[in-house]
């Protein structure tokens, strides 16, 4: 079963806020000068910010903020965030892989930015909403 697509807009302001909240102040997430110096096209989103947005999608699908029992991803491609009002957009999709005998639902998740996959092997297991 395919679940409804969820999209998330990501701007530079989001990255600054996430840096502060998470404590990850790596300058590749806020300085074009440093990002390009290490060979990136420009400032990129924290992988963990992308994963957090996917986590929002998963809890929304699950219908419960505390439903996640297992959640894993592989970061395959950076999410480049231009210094514009619009920033960029991440699209998150999932299919229900199985429902276990214990009632847990396993999801295979995909996340894309500008049509390219930014995660692979993204999987979440959720328990039913209370």
């Amino acid at each position, binding site marked *: 079963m395919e679940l409804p697509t969820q999209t*998330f807009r990501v701007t530079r302001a*989001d990255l600054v*806020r*996430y840096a*502060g*909240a*998470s*404590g*990850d102040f790596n300058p590749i997430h806020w300085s074009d000068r440093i990002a390009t110096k*290490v060979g990136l096209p420009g400032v990129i989103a924290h*992988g*963990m*910010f992308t*994963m*957090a*947005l996917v*986590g*929002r999608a*998963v*809890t929304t699908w699950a219908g*419960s*903020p*505390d439903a*996640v*029992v*297992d*959640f*894993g*991803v*592989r*970061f395959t491609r950076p999410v480049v965030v231009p210094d514009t009002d619009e920033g960029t957009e991440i699209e998150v999709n999932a299919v229900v892989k199985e429902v276990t005998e214990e009632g847990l639902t396993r999801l295979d998740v995909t996340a894309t930015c500008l049509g390219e996959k930014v995660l692979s*092997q993204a999987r979440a297991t959720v328990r039913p909403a*209370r």
Partner: protein
Amino acid sequence: MSLDPSFVGRSYPPTAPYQVGREKIREFATAIGATDPAYHDPAAARALGHPDVVAPPTFPMVLTMAANRQIIEDPALGVDYSRVVHGDQRFAYTRPVVAGDELVCVNTIEEITNRGGHGFLTTRTEVSTAAGEPVVAVWFKIVVRGEA
């Protein structure tokens, strides 16, 4: 860069307890745009059976990233942090993190491989309460890129 595979299995001393604050959870939830009341309002969290506000699923990274510095900055292992790229991330929950938790991290090096001139390091962090109740296991895999 090459990482010494003999470090596999090494565990580090438990970290100092991290106090999970209600405002920190709210701040983190706000930063990721998570508006569910259970992340912000203790009454909404209690309605779900939790003692206080619940943390979003990736919140434990706030403490495990700091805890992982034990490994990343272990001079004997010699990771060059400027060459580090985040590879994989996984959380396996016993229960959600909630405000009021006092959490301790125990880091273990689970896997080291070297291929194509790059080093691959997987750490496992067992996050439990100071009283010893398991909460979440966190896997963090990094790639230490070789010289171009």
